[in-house]
């Protein structure tokens, strides 16, 4: 039989996280700070609402765009946070996680060879979804000395006549970096000047600890040119339910809905029902989980700096991204040895882009006692380097 796998797929690099995952499986007594999801179970009121809907026979397809009630709740939610109204009928699409939303957006806005600018280090799916859509990802290496924040000058320098859009994620996976309203407006102004679309992945918005999160759609220059991505995976501890959403200009949402209709039909109905409950009654649980993450963040940052791993204070998400540069190991070597010698799993910074070299990502959505044990193992390890 001939080889049926396309060159595009063959050339698509496997996720650096996946490679590391292969190493971990089968090992015992590992403390994993390598996860990318909450350690809490979905709050019971949300699970119970989904159970009730299943008992009542809500097991069908929904409209392609998603349950109208959910879109209405999302519209209200965004309005409350940003004072910007998206019409539930035409400007909001329910997706199978933010993951699907990103994929749909790339396929909707990119013609072959067109460029999408992505500040790195960033979430592992961004560049591959651009490539799969036939586009070209253009990475900007952000500066650790500036807390891995993208500057308007860096953005300006990356733009060519092929650039279609910029994709920004804040609070950031893996660095935890976030932006003030002024910083966002300065970036949006560059996008506006070059007539670019802004894709804003704000899936960690609720997990912002020291200041209030500013949604990109609030920035004057971003108005009307922003695709806003969010979902329920992180703040509501609902990764397995697979529900996200996109809000944005009606024509782009219509284009995305076309692909979604043919390839996904709709997001799972039980997840959508659960998401409705999350928006109606989920706030107290979000607050409780956020308090726990906040304390763990303070704890792990302090602990890492005590050990001598230089770690800036991340503003949001549930990751820290300390520097391991002084040990003279590559981040993959550091992670592999830490795993085999001390049984602590962390993720090499290079999984999130080349400029992540010299850093590792640690997730603190982990019980505080486990963080403590992990820190003491990391300390042992570093003392030997």
């Amino acid at each position, binding site marked *: 039989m001939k080889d049926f796998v396309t060159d595009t797929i063959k050339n698509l690099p496997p996720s650096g996280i996946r490679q590391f995952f292969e190493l971990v499986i089968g090992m015992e007594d590992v403390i994993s700070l390598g996860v990318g999801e909450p350690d809490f179970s979905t709050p019971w009121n949300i699970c119970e609402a989904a159970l009730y809907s299943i008992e009542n026979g809500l097991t069908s397809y929904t409209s392609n765009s998603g349950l109208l009630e959910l879109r209405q709740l999302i519209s209200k939610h965004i309005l409350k946070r940003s004072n910007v109204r998206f019409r539930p009928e035409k400007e909001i699409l329910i997706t199978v996680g933010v993951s699907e939303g990103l994929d749909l957006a790339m396929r909707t806005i990119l013609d072959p060879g067109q460029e999408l600018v992505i500040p790195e280090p960033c979430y592992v799916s961004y560049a591959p979804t651009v490539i799969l859509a036939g586009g070209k990802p253009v990475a900007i290496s952000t500066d650790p000395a500036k807390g891995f924040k993208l500057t308007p000058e860096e953005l300006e320098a990356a733009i060519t006549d092929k650039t279609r859009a910029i994709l920004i994620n804040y609070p950031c*996976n893996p660095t935890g970096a976030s932006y003030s309203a002024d910083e966002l407006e300065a970036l949006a102004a560059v996008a506006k000047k070059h007539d670019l679309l802004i894709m804003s992945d704000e899936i960690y918005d609720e997990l912002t600890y020291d200041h209030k999160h500013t949604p990109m759609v609030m920035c004057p220059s971003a108005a009307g040119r922003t695709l806003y991505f969010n979902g329920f995976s992180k703040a509501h501890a609902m990764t397995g339910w697979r529900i996200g959403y996109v809000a944005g200009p009606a024509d782009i949402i219509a284009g995305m809905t076309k692909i979604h209709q043919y390839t996904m039909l709709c997001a799972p109905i039980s997840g959508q029902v659960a998401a409705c409950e999350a928006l109606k009654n989920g706030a107290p649980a979000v607050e409780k989980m956020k308090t726990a993450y906040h304390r763990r963040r303070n704890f792990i940052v302090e602990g890492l700096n005590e050990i001598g791993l230089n770690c800036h204070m991340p503003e949001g998400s549930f990751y820290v991204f300390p520097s391991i540069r002084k040990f003279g190991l590559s981040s993959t070597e550091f992670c592999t040895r830490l795993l085999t010698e001390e049984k602590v799993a962390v993720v090499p910074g290079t999984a999130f882009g080349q400029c992540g070299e010299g850093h590792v990502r640690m997730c603190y959505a982990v019980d505080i006692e486990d963080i403590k044990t992990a820190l003491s193992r990391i300390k042992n390890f570093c003392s030997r380097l």
Partner: protein
Amino acid sequence: MDPILEILEHNAKACPEDIAKMLGKDPQEVRDTIKKYEADNIILKYKTILNKEAIHDYASDSNAEVRALIEVKIIPQRDRGFDSVAERIYNFPEVTSCYLLSGGYDLLLVVEGATLASVANFVAQKLSPLENVRGTSTHFLLKKYKEDGDILTAGKQSDTRLQVSP
């Protein structure tokens, strides 16, 4: 509530150094605050929560206890209301909890004994005969599912997450 108290309420073993790290405070400040709470009777004591349901599953354990919830109707006293009668009752060591309630009865007691007979005895010999007790209704506890926020029936939930994920 002060986050220091909140942390200690969930984990009495949390040490001042760790609490300080979690809250971004100075360890000495946390130590002083805890001392003050202890002195002011805000922190009464540090206890360990046992899963007695699980202990009972150990065949060798002969100290299985019997617990009952007892509803008590009492006659309030002039000037002192329910308090003096309640005091007479809650001072018995068999009474592990005592609450004043609104509704069909006045006090709800949790009473512990080694055997069914010893609890029944306590009700018959000590509680019912009290001058200001008008009546009791005893419910023996068959199974504890959840207590003070902790679910007792399930085993420790294992972490089902992938060990490395994006």
